[in-house]
């Protein structure tokens, strides 16, 4: 079961069992909901941005090990970063999973050669690329985050 171990790395199981930054923030932090209609995963993301910096983020909702750990890893990775850096991280993360601009996994597209080191612990999710149906689980929190950043930018 080599493949499974690639998917369920220790870091992922750890973030699944003990998700970081659980909960919700009070306004003026914004609240964004994301759904994965395939499996019923739901995420509620609270996001506080001040002067172009993500000052705090919390993750609520419920999901599978991949979506929960991805949300947890993401929350730890983006806190304290500038919005621009977060967007760059998002692009790198999606590149690792061969997810195109339309948000769809395209197996014909070679994974973008990404600097895995720039992803830190997030690189633990790279095994997901081999499980196309699970990619939506790994990107749910990130897509929800992007939606939140767009909402803030539109204000």
């Amino acid at each position, binding site marked *: 079961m080599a493949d*499974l171990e690639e998917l369920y790395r220790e870091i992922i199981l750890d973030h699944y069992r003990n998700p970081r930054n659980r909960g919700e923030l009070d306004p003026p932090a914004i609240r964004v909901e994301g759904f994965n209609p395939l499996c*019923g995963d739901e995420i509620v993301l609270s996001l506080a941005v001040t002067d172009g910096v993500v000052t705090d983020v919390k993750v609520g909702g419920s999901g599978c090990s991949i979506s929960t750990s991805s949300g947890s890893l993401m929350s730890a990775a983006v806190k304290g970063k500038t919005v621009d850096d977060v967007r760059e991280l998002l692009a790198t993360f999606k590149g690792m999973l061969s997810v195109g601009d339309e948000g769809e996994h395209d197996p014909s597209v070679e994974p973008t050669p990404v600097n895995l080191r720039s992803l830190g612990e997030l690189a633990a999710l790279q095994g997901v690329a081999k499980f196309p149906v699970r990619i939506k689980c790994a990107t749910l929190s990130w897509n929800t985050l992007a939606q939140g950043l767009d909402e803030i930018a539109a204000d």
Partner: protein
Amino acid sequence: MAAVTSLDVATIRKDFPLLAQVRDGKRITYLDSGASALPPHQVVAAMATYQETTHANVHRGVYATAERATHLYEQARIDVGRFIGAAKPASEIVFTKNCTEAFNLLAQSWGLANLGPNSAIVLTEMEHHANIVPWLQLQTRLGFEIRYLSVAEDRTLDLSNLDQLLDGAALLSVTATSNVLGTVNPIAELASAAHAAGALIAVDGAQAVPHASIDVSALDLDFLAFSPHKVYGPTGIGVLYAKAEHLDAMPPFLGGGGMIKDVRLDGFLAADGPQRFEAGTPPIAEAVGLSAALAYVSGLGLDAIHAHHRSLTTYALSAIASTFGDTVKVQGPADGPNRAGVLSLTVDGVHAHDIAQVLDTYGVCVRPGHHCAKPLMRRLGVNATARASFGIYNDRDDIDLLVEALQATVTMFA
């Protein structure tokens, strides 16, 4: 009644080439017939023979092949009608795209003509979205009331307020078997209660028709919908049975060719009978495949199929309970005659998606998710289950492997 013979699974499996495949060194253990049952070779062959020897459009040509195609298509209608005990098999069966479209037809045709701001219909909390969303869509246009029978703690329907809910209702639309819980609902009792209250009854037979014989005349059903691809037939075709007295009064649903008697620039006259609801070229090869599928299951005997599924269900429920205690829960009623072979599994601390993923490494195919029954999932307080569902080709070895794979899942996430 003829004696119930048991199924010879080893022989049956030979008709399903998919099951003979080995993928990554593992054979495929297919426990997802509730989503779609595999078509046997006989169904595939009947469709291929039709395509290669008799392909033509129906109801139009006068040449021999077209006439033969029309005959096969209309014969399929009669076969379906007989299979479910319709009093007028040739004129009470409408072919749709799937079970979901059958409910849309019912809502947009019968519903639009018979419901209004002061009417009410009764559904249940355990319905598939196919029997909820079309009514919600129509409700936004017509403003009628939708009442719901609730799911009791023992995961059967709570019928204590049935008469109250039916009071003044025009329709009770209910699933015969829950695709999540495996609950087999008391359709005969529900039909007579509906009729006593002056309501009609529509039944979602998607999960029931593949497992036991349903006789629409004996049960006195007004409508029955089901999906042939869950009865070992092809995808791309669905069935709506409507009692002739209702069907003949229902306005058309989709418009176009095939469903008319006459068309002028300022109006049209709809065709009579089932054709009124079959706009455009219908699923002809699929109808031929459906006939073959019904012949196949009839050959095995629905009583034998039912007994086979009952015995697998009892075996699986007791194997899971004795192996896992409370760690693995099966969402649904306790074992018994009204418990179908649909096992929705939940494991505390392990998401259904992860269960299904680990099971896949054993070649065990189950379905994770909400199974298009989100209101029911909310009622159960879970956001997903991993569902194993049985078919005629499953045996106890399949269940033993399921248990072994579940054990690995529990170990991995413990």
